[in-house]
């Protein structure tokens, strides 16, 4: 990688510029006029190159998930641009597209959810869940649909005969694999993983991360990886963006973030991670230090 936080050399796959998402704070009373705004995402900028994995870390409520969802237009951003490069070379602004223009672009941008229980419709069979993207975009039907679903299930480590079952018959790790199968069946170029492994236990987490890495190599996938687990980020991401209160405070290649954090907040965040080495003292004063940081601003 080049300069910390700089735009990657090649034209980026995704380029987020000045992204903002403000929520109104409704006051009391009948008309409930909103006089204040919560700046969940405030002027966020970052780029992701093709085939790269960008980690987005920060404490709970710092706006990581809102940023990811705005970038995907799952929610409409208040301001800013989200430039996405389509496989044919055209660049579109996801933040500005109309609903009709957005649909063909959805093929290339997918999401893996945090909660493997609620992200799968309990009333649909695995075949219907995984095959739905192909049906929506009219890419396959009948026998071809069936074969492609079976293929993708095999690719994520499930059995083809699982197709007729309902999500409640699977374990958490298997459900997350179903979610991954749904995300990759259309061969997208960008996948946003919204805390994709944080609901899983540690051993399953490792398996799912390995699977994501294999898929990245195989299909040249690009990941925007939202996480709060710094160990996962350290092993998985090429670059890391640290968010705090809706802003990115530091964006640098992973080794650099962990070896030489520049921002005070990043240092506090890193010091809060328990180390397996008994000689490394754990920081128990995180709250205090954060308060100091707040006061300094």
């Amino acid at each position, binding site marked *: 990688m080049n300069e910390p936080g700089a735009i990657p050399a090649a034209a980026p796959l995704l380029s987020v510029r000045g992204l903002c998402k403000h929520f109104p704070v409704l006051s009391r009373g009948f008309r409930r006029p909103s006089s204040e705004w919560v700046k969940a995402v405030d002027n966020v900028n970052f780029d992701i190159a093709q085939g790269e994995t960008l980690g987005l870390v920060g404490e709970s409520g710092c706006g990581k998930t809102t940023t990811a969802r705005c970038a995907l237009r799952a929610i409409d951003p208040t301001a800013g641009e989200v430039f996405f490069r389509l496989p044919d070379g055209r660049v579109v602004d996801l933040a500005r597209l109309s609903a009709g223009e957005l649909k063909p672009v959805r093929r290339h941008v997918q*999401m893996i959810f945090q909660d493997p229980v609620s992200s799968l*419709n309990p009333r*649909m069979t695995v075949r219907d869940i995984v095959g*739905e993207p192909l049906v*929506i975009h009219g890419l396959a039907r009948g026998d071809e649909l069936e074969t492609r679903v079976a293929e993708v299930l095999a690719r994520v480590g499930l059995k083809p005969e699982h197709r007729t079952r309902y999500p409640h*018959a699977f374990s958490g790790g298997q459900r997350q694999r179903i*979610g991954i199968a749904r995300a990759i069946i259309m061969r997208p170029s960008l996948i946003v993983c919204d805390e994709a492994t944080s609901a899983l236990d540690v051993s399953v987490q490792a398996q799912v991360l390995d699977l994501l890495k294999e898929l990245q190599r195989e299909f040249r996938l690009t990941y925007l990886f939202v996480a709060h687990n710094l160990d996962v980020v350290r092993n998985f991401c090429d670059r890391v963006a640290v968010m705090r209160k809706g802003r990115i405070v530091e964006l640098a290649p992973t080794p650099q973030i962990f070896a030489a954090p520049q921002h005070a907040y990043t240092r506090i965040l890193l010091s809060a991670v328990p180390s397996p080495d008994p000689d490394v003292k754990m920081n128990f004063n995180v709250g205090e230090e954060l308060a100091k940081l707040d006061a300094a601003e």
Partner: protein
Amino acid sequence: MATPASTNDGSAGTLSPWALIGRRFAHHRLAVASLYLLAVLYALALGAEFFAPYPRQWRDLTRAYCPPQLPQFSLRHGLHVPAMRAFVDPLTFKKSYIEDEGAPVKLGFFVKGAPYVFWGLLTWDRHFFGVKNTAAQRPDGRPVTFYFLGADKYGEDIFSRLIYGSRISLSVGLVSIAVTFLLGVTIGGISGYVGGATDTFIQRGIEVINAFPQIPLWLAFGAVLPADWSPLSTYFAITLVLSLLGWTGLARVVRGKILSLREEDYATAARLLGASHTRILFRHLLPGFASHIIVVLTMSVPAMILGETSLSFLQLGLRPPIVSWGVMLQDCLSIQTVENYPWLLMPVVMIVLTVLCFNFLGDGLRDAADPYSTR
């Protein structure tokens, strides 16, 4: 919950949610019994011409207020009822009947009777149950009669009229339910899915509709219905009136469910896949509570049946010559009539039976509705 079938490796998870609902429903004995009883009632209504011993317009004025005649069995006469002789009390002029031991009226199954056209398709003259020898005559020269559940003031057979009346009374619920379903799911769905100002507007509208006093509103509607409308038009106007007031409950259920389900990740996932609003609503959100809709609809059928009955009883809804249970109850407006001829209250028994059946069925469906809950 580990049922034997779901622990079996081969069939694990292959039962669809509907199959699970069916299994749980089967455990609710009362609901299953109600379902069968309702099936019988609806079958009777469908084949009214065949099951009713007498045609709809049949009457024998000389036999007004004939009491119910319970069939008896003897080796000599087979299935029969004793013949009845009319007797007018010389003091009170009350008409009563005494059994005439002389010539019993023989009864039978699949007897030849008045010909009828079945659903406009085939002409037949067989009736499921009735007088065996229709050529037999009473001393006064009229054909013998058999009133299973008694006769009304015109000498019409109450049992036959109950069966014909069930056609109207049982279907009025279903037709209104269809309209209620359309209105409730559409308006409630829009309210929950679109949200915001639309939602507020629809919800306040529902509250206004619910705040209307029902009986005066019915009176107004009844007054508006032109007296010269055909029976069919009146019938549809009544169903429409009933469902125009009844859809609000369903709309609220649908709105609440959609409000909670649209925030589920799988709804977001479908949106991110590029699914249209219609697809998200009908493929992802509605199946999640289709069972609840069925329960609400089942539970509101009795209200519709009772509504029709009340309207007709108050002479605001259907009028003779249409036969419905409510129309039949118009004869019971005076307490003397009811005291002297209690069998005129038979429609009440049928209404109570039907309403109870629907309530039990709704109970069973509600218990079975969520296949993933444990019990």
